[in-house]
């Protein structure tokens, strides 16, 4: 049997091959770790919506409270998107000819739903409950960012499990009095963590970290 003999020119490549073999896995791991993490894949997600609704205009400039449209956020798991009739509360007399609002007027007339694209989408096996957070003093801005400055909504936070757990393990960083939940510009009167600790004690906030908290 003839011995396995490589061509001579491969001798020069030995070192290079060794380096690649050592470095490539690390490179792939780092790329996947950062490239496939929700921080990369989800942050900044700004899908095109059927109606160019601008939160910057309505929530920011006009100062409409989040709960005027997202009415169920304090009672239910879903912060429901508003039914068209809420839009029509104003828009039956405001900008009644606007082309941007054509789909809204059609929806109100025919009863067909507007097909909004979900921006903050969690996997189906995760059960997030808005009311549990909103009634305890987690502000809208903590997870959704400065919505009142977004002409088109995009995702600001990764909403990954580790990101949720960071807060669950130390909620004091993100707490505010429940009355200030929709205030986008609220700042703690003192150090946020110290203030948060006091709120935590006052409202007995102990976020669970058991699996069944979110996975059912």
């Amino acid at each position, binding site marked *: 049997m003839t011995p396995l003999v490589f061509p001579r020119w491969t001798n020069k490549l030995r070192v290079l091959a060794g380096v690649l073999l050592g470095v490539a896995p690390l490179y792939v791991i780092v790329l996947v770790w950062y490239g496939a993490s929700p921080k990369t894949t989800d942050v900044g997600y700004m899908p095109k919506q059927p109606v160019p609704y601008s939160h910057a205009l309505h929530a920011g400039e006009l100062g409409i409270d989040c709960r005027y449209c997202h009415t169920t956020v304090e009672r239910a798991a879903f912060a429901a998107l508003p039914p068209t009739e809420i839009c029509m509360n104003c828009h039956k007399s405001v900008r009644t000819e606007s082309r941007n609002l054509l789909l809204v007027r059609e929806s*109100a007339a025919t009863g067909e739903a507007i097909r909004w694209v979900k921006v903050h989408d969690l996997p189906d096996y995760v059960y997030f409950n808005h009311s549990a957070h909103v009634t305890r003093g987690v502000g809208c801005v903590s997870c959704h960012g400065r919505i009142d400055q977004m002409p088109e909504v995009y995702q600001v936070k990764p909403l990954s499990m580790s990101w949720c757990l960071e807060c669950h393990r130390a909620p004091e960083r993100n707490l505010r009095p429940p009355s200030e939940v929709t205030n986008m510009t609220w700042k703690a009167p003192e150090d946020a963590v110290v203030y948060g600790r006091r709120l935590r004690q006052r409202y007995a906030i102990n976020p669970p970290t058991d699996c069944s908290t979110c996975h059912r």
Partner: protein
Amino acid sequence: MPPMTDDRTRPSFWRSLAELEGESEFREREKSEFSREFEEAGDGQPDRRRFLQVMGASLALGGATTACRWEKEEVLPLSSRPEGIVPGEPRFYSTSMELDGIGTGLRVTAVDGRPIKVEGNPLHPESLGAASIYQQASVLELYDPDRSTDIVRRQTGASGANWGDFDNWLRGAIGPFRSRRGHGMAVLAEPSSSPTATRLRRQLLSSMPEIRWVDWAPNNRDHEIAGAVRAFGAPMRQLCLYDEAAVVLALDVDPMNPARPGALAAARALTRGRQPDQTQTMNRIYSVESCFSMMGALADHRLALRSGDIAALAALLDARLSARIGARADLGPPQVEPELDLLRTERCSRFVDSLVTDLLNARGRAVVVTGPRQPPQVHSLVHRLNYLLGNVGRTVWYLAEPDGSAAGPGQVSALTGLVDAMRRGGVEFLCILGGNPVLDAPADLDFGAALQKVPNSLHLASYEDETSQKTTWHLPRAHFLEAWGDTTAWDGTVSLAQPLIEPLYGGRSIIELLSILIDGQAKGGRQLVRETHGQLPDPVFRKALHDGVMAGTAWPRLIPSLRPLGKLNLAEGAASSDTLELVLAVDSNVYDGRFANNGWLVELPDPMTKVTWENVVCIAPNTAARLGIADGGRVHLTANGHSVTVTAVHAPGQAERSVKLALGWGRTAAGRIGGATRLGVPAAGTNAYVLTSARQGLVIPEASLRATGERTLLATTQDLHAIDQYGREATNARLGMIVREATLGQWLSHPDFAKTAVHHAPLLQMWQPPVSYEGHRWGMSIDLGKCIGCNACMVACQAENNVPVVGKEQVARGREMHWLRVDRYYKGTPDQPEAAFQPVPCQQCENAPCEQVCPVGATSHSHEGLNDMAYNRCIGTRYCSNNCPYKVRRFNYFNFHLDLEKPENQVKKMVYNPDVTVRSRGVMEKCTFCVQRIERVKIQAKNVRRPIAEGEIVTACQQTCPTGAIVFGDLSSQQSQVSKLQALDRSYALLEELNTRPRVQYLARIRNPKPEST
């Protein structure tokens, strides 16, 4: 377990619905089960993007354009949201379901406009908060893709006819009959006690008096009503107050079988008298029956006797009791004691002596009851016995049957008359409202052939079933969850039924069709129901609709006067001593066949035999040995000149020389689960209706059985026999540790027998438990004395937790997915066994063997004591299931929801509970103590900063259990019911010697047989 054979003559099994629907597709998928994923990894679009992204220079190149995201999800809010509707949150509505003329009140959960879960209505006297297997499974029927979606007009072969076409045709067709006062027209309907249906029927018959109206159901009450007429001169129904009875005698009846009216209330009442903890007393139940039923399992004394011989036993009882009680002229002469050898066996004599003594001691506090199988004379005699014992007016009352429904010679007679008329050409227009007479009418009438002679016929049905394939019109029927209606309970309480969803396929209900027949106007169900109760002002009507019951509508309890009975004809119905009796009964799961396409019910194990996916003929082991029939062997069963081939099972407790076969299987036009010739789906089970005849009831005195020599693989969830002798001995030795029970006397002298039944070393632990339980401590207590084995908890769990149906072959491999199973254990000898049931959910062990071995940490212990399962983390090593001593973990060997990809199956998605993940393949699942319900209540309570009340969280199994055997609650509070139950002396943990520290504890069963000494 019968050995696996490659017997090619057995029915072909299929692994999943996917296989059924597209054989070639499934084969292809099967071949590339794993390779497909790898292929997609190379070619699929998202992965190319992923590749690009990975190779991208900048790590921040993620985000909008090349993000590797899952499919975009849309949110479609209502254009106009009704007041009070919160998307994603459940709403509860009261309605009711009628089964062969008896209604049960329900409370149904609806999410986003569709009903997903049925519960009982605590205010309804039949339900008292519980729901049976039929009610729990009804929601699956609503979303069955095999339901008929169109009107079919057979003459023209046209589908795509709409209701407008039908209404027009009907107006034309019914004209001549109207002028003839209905002569030549007939209506064949399911029995119904709905006030609206009754009112419309009267209206129809008053405008067209010569319409021949026939009620027909295979599970009819003919014998019972004839017996009452004989005894009282008028049709009466018996109301038994079991919870006030000290002694109950059931003659060939199981009052708790969901096919019986008032089953849920009966189960509750019977078991209420079997809790000795407070009073140290219990009722005593005697059961005489041919086939082992739940009542027989609950009974303290059971005698297996052929159904045809029970009349003789009843006569014997009457003779003995009358002799001791003395003459009662007002009740007529007693029966003469029959001279029959079978009543003189030692077993029978002891049974009768004990029974007579107990009945005499419990005069006025006893109940004697019998069932639809027994001939009318036995019913009359049972009424007499109740009067003789002074029960009437105390534990037994009578209610007058409502007018019209029970008058006449009986349903079989009326049906025979109808078929004769059809055959003669005397019926020109036949309306079949519900039911399936081509399938279930007595076979010797040959309804199908008679139907050919009727020029115009229509069938209003949920499926295009056997009858619909022979009528000229098939009309899709609205499911009870889609329709307005009203029902009457056994005691007369009226319940309204309201729809929770618009008819998915535009079906109509029976009352809506009747309205059209009456005057051609298509009035809606709501209007019809409102008109029936027109005398009620709106607020009262709305309250009745909200509550689910109309207050004060129960019928008055009566004590009619009893007529003297003649001598019982003991030859009638009794087989001679060397022939084989065949008992046909509606199946405990698929009923008379109407649920044959309901996956949850078809895969539900039979309460006693634990067989799924088919019906089997139950033979007593001794009889089988004599006839040379093996367990699982195929046999030819012949009766009334017809023969069927069916699998036989050795059934402990079955009376000798009597065999039982269930009706309702072997259908040819049920659907993809039950069998459909049109779709090429083989029938599940065997059609036993071909053995029925109009002359005889469902007890056929002479039948014959012959082994074919073949055997078949039965899909049972529990083996009837151990693997070998050694295995059987070892199993039997252990059973006393698993199901702990004692007689009342034994318990009174050793109250903690349950705790000391198993001797084991002190249960110590080497390490401190990692979790300290400072908040809630969830636990459960299951009372084995109350569990009757009805399996309602299994179906409720399946409905609540999106548990899939796996198919016969997978069940045969032990891969059924029921999170909660009810084990049935026999005790004693095969011919005189006792039986016990034990529901086994995940025990939520504090020291869980499963948590310790999961390599990826998919299962962990919560701070409240639950064993959590994170499906997305599970990689499917199945080590946890391997380590679980209770074997409560179920593995998804396949993706059982693949059939949802087909457009016609999309409707099945609507039944899923949105609060529970739908699991894919390769993932382990198990009972979670309904953690979605726990979390929902916890969040609601925390939102408004209030504590959780006792009893606020109920698991699905607990909520539906008719007897309240399952109690879930918070062990951290001493006052909670579960804490109190776990503190009882008869509470024990299953396999506690393994130091698993389960949170589920069982209450040992206490029986109350007559003590030997007295």
